[in-house]
C-alpha cells in the first residue's frame, strides 16, 4: 500500500531530526507524536522506508559519527563515546566493532597511520595513470 505524501514528509522530517540530534537522548515516543503517528505506525513506516528500525538507524548514525571523529578529532575514545550519544563505553565498543569491524582504538590507530602517510607520501595513494593523465598529459 502506497504511503501518502504528507506521511512521507513526516517520516523524513523525523529522520532529519534524528540526524541533527543523534548525540542527545532521542525519545522515539516523542518523535512519533510530533509526526502525528502512533509509535507502532512510526516504527513500521520508518523501517519500511529506511530498511532499518529507528533504533538501528540511530545506532548506525552514532557509530558513523564516532568513526569520523576517531579519525579526525583529538578526543579520547570515552569522550567520543559520550559525545555521539552512547551511555556506556562497553556497549559503544561492541557496537563499533560490529558495524566497522575493528575496536575503536585500533580503528583510530589505523586511520592516524593512513593520514600520516597521506601527508608525507601522497603519491602512494594515487594510481600512477591518474598522475600521468592529469598532471603530465
Amino acid at each position, binding site marked *: 500500500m502506497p504511503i501518502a505524501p504528507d506521511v512521507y514528509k513526516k517520516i*523524513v522530517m523525523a529522520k532529519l531530526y534524528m540526524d541533527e540530534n543523534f548525540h542527545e537522548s532521542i525519545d522515539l515516543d516523542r518523535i512519533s507524536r510530533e509526526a502525528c503517528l502512533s509509535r507502532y505506525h512510526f516504527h513500521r513506516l520508518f523501517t519500511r522506508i529506511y530498511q532499518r528500525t529507528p533504533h538501528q538507524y540511530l545506532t548506525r548514525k552514532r557509530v558513523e559519527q564516532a568513526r569520523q571523529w576517531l579519525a579526525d578529532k583529538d578526543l579520547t575514545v570515552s569522550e567520543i563515546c559520550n559525545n555521539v550519544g552512547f551511555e556506556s563505553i562497553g556497549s559503544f565498543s561492541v557496537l563499533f566493532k560490529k558495524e566497522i569491524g575493528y575496536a575503536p582504538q585500533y580503528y583510530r590507530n589505523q586511520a592516524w597511520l593512513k593520514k600520516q602517510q*597521506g601527508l608525507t607520501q*601522497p603519491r602512494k595513494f*594515487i594510481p600512477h595513470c*591518474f598522475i600521468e593523465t592529469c*598532471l603530465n598529459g
Partner: protein
Amino acid sequence: MITKVSHVSLFVLDQQKAYDFYVTTLGFKVNTDVTMDNGFRWITVSPPEQPDLEITFLAPLAANMMGYDDETRNAFRILLEKGALGAGVLHTPDCRATYEELKAKGVQFKGEPKEQFYGIEAIISDGVGNWFSMTQPTPQAGAQHP
C-alpha cells in the same frame, strides 16, 4: 579476467563543492583525501553501502591539471557548465523519501519522482556539472534497468 570496477572518475567543476555534495549531503564515505606538493588533490569517496567502489573527483578546470590543453579544458567547461554529463544511476531503497530529504537540503531535481517501468525515478543534479538518475528499482527489474 576483469571482475569488478574499483575506481571511476567523475569530472566536476569544483572538487570542494563536489565533496560537500557527495559527502555532506548524500552521506558518501571518504576513502582517501591527499594533496600533492603541486596542489593536486586526490579524493575518493564510496557510496554508503558500496565500500569497494571508489569515485574520484577530477576538476579539469583546476590550474594544476596540467595534463589537459586549453581546447580540452574548454570542452570540459562547456559540458560541465551546461550540466550535459549524465553520470549514472544512484540506487535508493525509497525514491520518494530520499527525494523529500534531499529537496529539504536544497538539492536540485528535474521534477518529482515518476513511476517508470524499471522503478520510481527522479533526476538529480550534483551541482558540479553532472546529473544522475536516482532510482528505486521495482523488484526483479534489474535486468531491464536503463
